[in-house]
C-alpha cells in the first residue's frame, strides 16, 4: 500500500514532464509550479491524495486491525496470551498510527525525490509570494506530512472502533472509507455550516497554512484538538466494545 501511495507523486511528475506546460490556476493546486520547482511534486501529490487515497489506505489498515484477526480466526489465540485486551487494542492502534505517519511521509519524500530527478530544484515560492531556500522548503514539506499524519489519526481511531464491531475485515475497511467520504461531502454543504468544525475531515486541506509566511499555526492547533477528541471518543468506544466482546473466532 505504501508503494501505491508512492506511485501517486511519480505519476504526477511523469505526466507533467511529458505534457506541455500547465496553465496557471488549472488543475490541482500547485500543479503549475512543478515545472519551475520539483519540490512541488510532493505538495501536489499530497493535495491530490488527501481526499481519497490517504483515507483509503488508512481505512484499509485501521479496518483490518481487529476484524482481520477475527476473520482469520487468530484473535482468540492472541487473547490467550496473558497480555490483556487493552494492551492488544493499544498495540493495534499504534500499528495503525505508524502507518498513518509513514503514509504521508512516503508521498512527500517520493514526490520531492522524483521532482528533484525530473525538474530543477530551487528556492520555493510560498503562498504569500515570499521565497524560501530549499532546506527550509524541505522542513515545510515534512511539516505538511506531519499535519496530514495528525489529520488521519482521528479516522484511524474510527476505523479501529468499526473493526471491533465485526468479524469481516472488508466490511470494516469499507465502512471507514465511506465515512471519510461522507464527512467530506457534508463538509462541502454550506447548509450544514454548524456541523463543519466537528467533522474530522474539516481541516484536512488546511495544510496550506503551513505554506504561508509567517506560518499560520491556528489550523494545526485546531486540527490537533479535533483529532484528539476523535481519538478519545472512538478509543473509548473501541475499549467498551472490545472489552465486553465475546470473542468466538
Amino acid at each position, binding site marked *: 500500500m505504501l508503494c501505491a501511495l508512492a506511485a501517486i507523486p511519480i505519476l504526477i511528475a511523469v505526466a507533467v514532464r511529458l505534457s506541455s506546460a500547465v496553465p*496557471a*490556476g*488549472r488543475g490541482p*493546486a*500547485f500543479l*503549475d*509550479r512543478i515545472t*519551475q520547482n520539483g519540490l512541488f511534486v510532493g505538495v501536489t501529490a499530497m*493535495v491530490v491524495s488527501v481526499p481519497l487515497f490517504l483515507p483509503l489506505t488508512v481505512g484499509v489498515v485501521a479496518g483490518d486491525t481487529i476484524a482481520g484477526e477475527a476473520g482469520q480466526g487468530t484473535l482468540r489465540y492472541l487473547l490467550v496470551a496473558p497480555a490483556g485486551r487493552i494492551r492488544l487494542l493499544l498495540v493495534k492502534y499504534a500499528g495503525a498510527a505508524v502507518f498513518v505517519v509513514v503514509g504521508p511521509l512516503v508521498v512527500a519524500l517520493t514526490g520531492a525525490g522524483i521532482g528533484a530527478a525530473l525538474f530543477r530544484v*530551487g*528556492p520555493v*515560492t510560498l*503562498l*504569500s*509570494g*515570499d*521565497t524560501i531556500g530549499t532546506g527550509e522548503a524541505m522542513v515545510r514539506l515534512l511539516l505538511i506530512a506531519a499535519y496530514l499524519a495528525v489529520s488521519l489519526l482521528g479516522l484511524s481511531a474510527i476505523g479501529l472502533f468499526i473493526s471491533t464491531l465485526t468479524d469481516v475485515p472488508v466490511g470494516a475497511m469499507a465502512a471507514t472509507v465511506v465515512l471519510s467520504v461522507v464527512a467530506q461531502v457534508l463538509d462541502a454543504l*454550506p447548509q450544514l455550516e454548524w456541523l463543519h468544525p466537528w467533522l474530522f475531515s474539516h481541516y484536512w*486541506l*488546511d495544510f*496550506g*497554512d503551513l505554506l*504561508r*509566511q*509567517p506560518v*499560520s499555526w*491556528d489550523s494545526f492547533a485546531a486540527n490537533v484538538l479535533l483529532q484528539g*477528541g476523535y481519538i*478519545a*471518543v472512538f*478509543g*473509548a*468506544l473501541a*475499549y*467498551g466494545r472490545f*472489552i*465486553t466482546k465475546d470473542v468466538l473466532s
Partner: protein
Amino acid sequence: MTRAGNRAWLRWLPAAAVPAVIAAGALAGSLPASAGDPLPPKTPEQVLQLIAQHREPALSGTLEQSSELGLPELPKTGPGTDSSNAWLELLTGPHTARVYLDGPDNARVQVMDRLAERNAVRHGNELWFYNSKDNTASHVQLPADGAGKRVEGKDSAVTPDQLASMLLAKIDSSTEVTVGADVQVAGRAAYNLVLTPKSVATLVSSVSVAVDGQTGLPLGVQVKARGQADPVFGVAYTNLSLGAPDASLFTFSPPPGATVKEVPAPEYKAGTEHATPPAKDSTHKPAVTGSGWDSVIAFPAGTATSASETSALLQQATVPVQGGRLLSTALVNVLVLDDGRVVAGSVPVERLQAAAAEK
C-alpha cells in the same frame, strides 16, 4: 451473572464519559469570557474622542470577515474565480485575513484562501499585489506626495480601523450615536459604539463599532439590517498583538516565475474602482437625492453597460422587476433601469423605483 452484567456496563463508562467531557468543554469555551463591566463608563462623545486620538498603530492581527448580504455564494475554487470578480467574491461568504501594520507607510494584508493567498503589501511608496492562485503580481508606484495618505484601493478598507473612520466621518444629525454594553474582541475589552439611523426608510438597522478601551483602536465593525437578527456584515479581529511586526514582512519582491504587471498609479485607481460605476467626467456625474442613510444615488445612462460587462455574475444575480433589473441584497438595492440608468441606495425597492420615476 449480575456482577458480570454490572462490570460490562462499567466498561462502556468511558465511551459515555468522553463525549460528555468534550460537550462540557465546548460549552464552556463558547460562553463569553467575562461578563463583567471592566471599562469605566463613557459617553458617546468621549468614545468618539477616544477614537479620534488613537495613533496610526503598529500591530499584527487576524481578521475574520463575514457577509450575509444575500448574494449567491461564488465557488471558491475552480476556473470561475478570476481576478475580475475577486472583489465580488470578497462580498460573499466568510474570509480570514492576516493584517500587519507599522505606521502609515508599512502595511501587509494577507487574505487566506484554502491552498491560496492574496497579498497586498505596502512599503513606502511601493505597492504590491500578489495572487498565489495564478502566480501574478502587480506593482504600483505611488506618487510621492500621497505617501502620507491612506492607501486607496480595493484592499484598503479592510481593517476595522479604516472602515470605522470611513463610517464615523459620515456621522451627522441623521444618526443617533449611543454606547452599548462593553464587548470582548480578540480578548480585549472594548466599548461598543452603536450608530442607529434616525430614518426608518433605510435598510440599515444599526452599525456597531467596537472600540478598544485602552488604545481607542476600532477592533470590529458590525452592520445589521432591518428585520434580521444576525449581522449581515461583520469584520473583527480574532487575534491582535500590538507592537511592530517583523520588518521583513513589508519588503516584497515578486517570486521567480511570477507574471509581473506594472500598473501606473492613476490607471490603477480607475481599474480597481470598477466595482462602483465610476464618475469620471461631468456627463457621468451621479445625482444624489435625499441625505443621510436613506439617500438614493442615480447614475445616468451609459454606466450600466460598463458595469454589467464587468461581470456576467452580476447579470445572473439580478432579478427582473418593474422598469428594470434589481440586484437585491440585505443592505443595498441596486436597480438597473431599462433605459440604462442605475439607481442605488440602502433603501427598499419601492423608493428606488419612485426615485427613478422622478426623472
